């Protein structure tokens, strides 16, 4: 009896282990070959390294249409995805895209897990301290949205004062709210809500928990159209410049090359064509 028990237990463990080994490759179909992780300081030869690997590993947070999302067949689609593939083509390397939470992107870049980040990300001062950014590939606007039956009227961003407002955690919009509404005393801190994703904030608009959501204009228009929400104000005031590709700090050669390629794609109309393809204003 006791031997049987031990055998059964051994079997369970073995089955679990086998299923685990079988599962690992399935979970990581595009895992790069083992290579020593680059400490943040040694990023000078980053471009050569990427060329040698023949692969640019790009992190994104694929829950932000029309910039990045995953279609029903599991492909990465959107403006950013098309753009980074065009960049990869010019760079002469394959582009491998990895999906992770927005909050993990910068840390993954710093630790050399990925070579670049394209996630409708803006080059803020806080982010500039940790990573470098290319030139912007697209200037941004933000939008304030409200529920379909809202009576709020906005003519300037400060009209949001005192209202229950939501934004995505760690975004420029959340920073603007903290700096311009909370720190100035216009809105009490307990009326500001932070969400892992913008669509969750939109759900709370519909349920009445929030009066406003501040987010990037284009996904806001999309969200408003699909969920019958009201766009109250589209503004450049809350946005800080444009969206850039983030790269490891000090990777000067990579930055120079990407800047050149991105400027080229803007100049030859590729960016404009992609904006039209994805319905971006």
């Amino acid at each position: 009896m006791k031997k049987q028990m031990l055998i059964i237990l051994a079997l369970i463990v073995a089955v679990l282990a086998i299923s685990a080994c079988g599962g690992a490759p399935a979970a990581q179909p595009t895992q790069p070959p083992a290579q020593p992780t680059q400490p943040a300081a040694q990023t000078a030869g980053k471009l050569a390294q990427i060329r040698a690997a023949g692969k640019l590993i790009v992190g994104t947070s694929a829950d932000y249409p029309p910039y990045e999302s995953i279609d029903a067949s599991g492909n990465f689609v959107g403006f950013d995805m098309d753009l980074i593939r065009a960049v990869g083509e010019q760079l002469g390397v394959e582009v491998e895209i990895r999906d992770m939470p927005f909050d993990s992107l910068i840390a993954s870049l710093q630790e050399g897990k990925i070579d670049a980040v394209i996630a409708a990300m803006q080059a803020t001062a806080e982010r500039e301290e940790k990573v470098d950014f290319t030139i912007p590939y697209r200037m941004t606007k933000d939008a304030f949205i409200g529920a379909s039956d809202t009576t709020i009227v906005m003519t300037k961003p400060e009209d949001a004062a005192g209202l229950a407002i939501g934004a995505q955690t760690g975004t420029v919009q959340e920073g603007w709210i903290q700096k311009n509404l909370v720190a100035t005393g216009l809105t009490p801190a307990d009326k500001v809500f932070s969400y892992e994703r913008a669509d969750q904030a939109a759900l709370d608009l519909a349920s009445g928990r929030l009066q406003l959501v501040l987010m990037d204009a284009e996904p806001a228009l999309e969200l408003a159209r699909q969920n019958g929400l009201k766009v109250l104000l589209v503004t450049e005031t809350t946005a800080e410049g444009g969206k850039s590709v983030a790269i490891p700090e000090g990777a000067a050669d990579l930055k120079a090359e990407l800047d050149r390629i991105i400027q080229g794609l803007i100049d030859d109309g590729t960016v404009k064509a992609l904006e039209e393809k994805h319905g971006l204003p």
Partner: protein
Amino acid sequence: MMGLFQDLLTTFNFIVQGLWVTISVTAVALTVGFTIGVVMAIARVYGHPALQTAVSAYSVVIRAVPVIVIIFILFFVISRYVNLSPFWAGALALGFASGAYQTEIFRGAIQAVQSGQMIAARAIGMSRLQAIQSIVLPQALRLALPAWGNEATLVLKDSTLVFAVGVPEILRRAQQVSARTFEPFLAFGVALLLYLALTLITTQALQWIERRYRLQV
């Protein structure tokens, strides 16, 4: 009606691809946790006092740290030195965390086997190791099963945390669908059904094992 069914099918087909990831992460975590748990529990009960202290420290510290922090430490700090894929970083971190809880489960079970049995085993000439292996453990493992089943379902749900390092399990796939279709209820409903099915299967399997190995007194 047809449209809804079509949506449901598309959503299901997409999310179910994360099922294998969830199962693999959970299986690795439970296996690692089980191994750590049994070894640590034996060390905790029968080991040298210094070893007992070390094991208690592991158990207390790991249980005090949120699992997500352990995942980040493994993926962002440890893997500077050892090349760990996101999958293994996430699964092993869950295993270390579960190991601490399983240590306590097995410690309790071992202590529940009357100490007289150890004395009797030694008296008939068994070594301590023999007695643990042949007398104490077979009983303790049976006693531990109900609590272990509970831990297994908790680890299953904790497996959602591995997406923090980019492993696309069931919940993340549901989020991806929700972000694309703006139909969160459908997406998270499918995720809920999958987790429910996994939990039911796990508990049924463990109950079967419990019945199968119940001691006839």
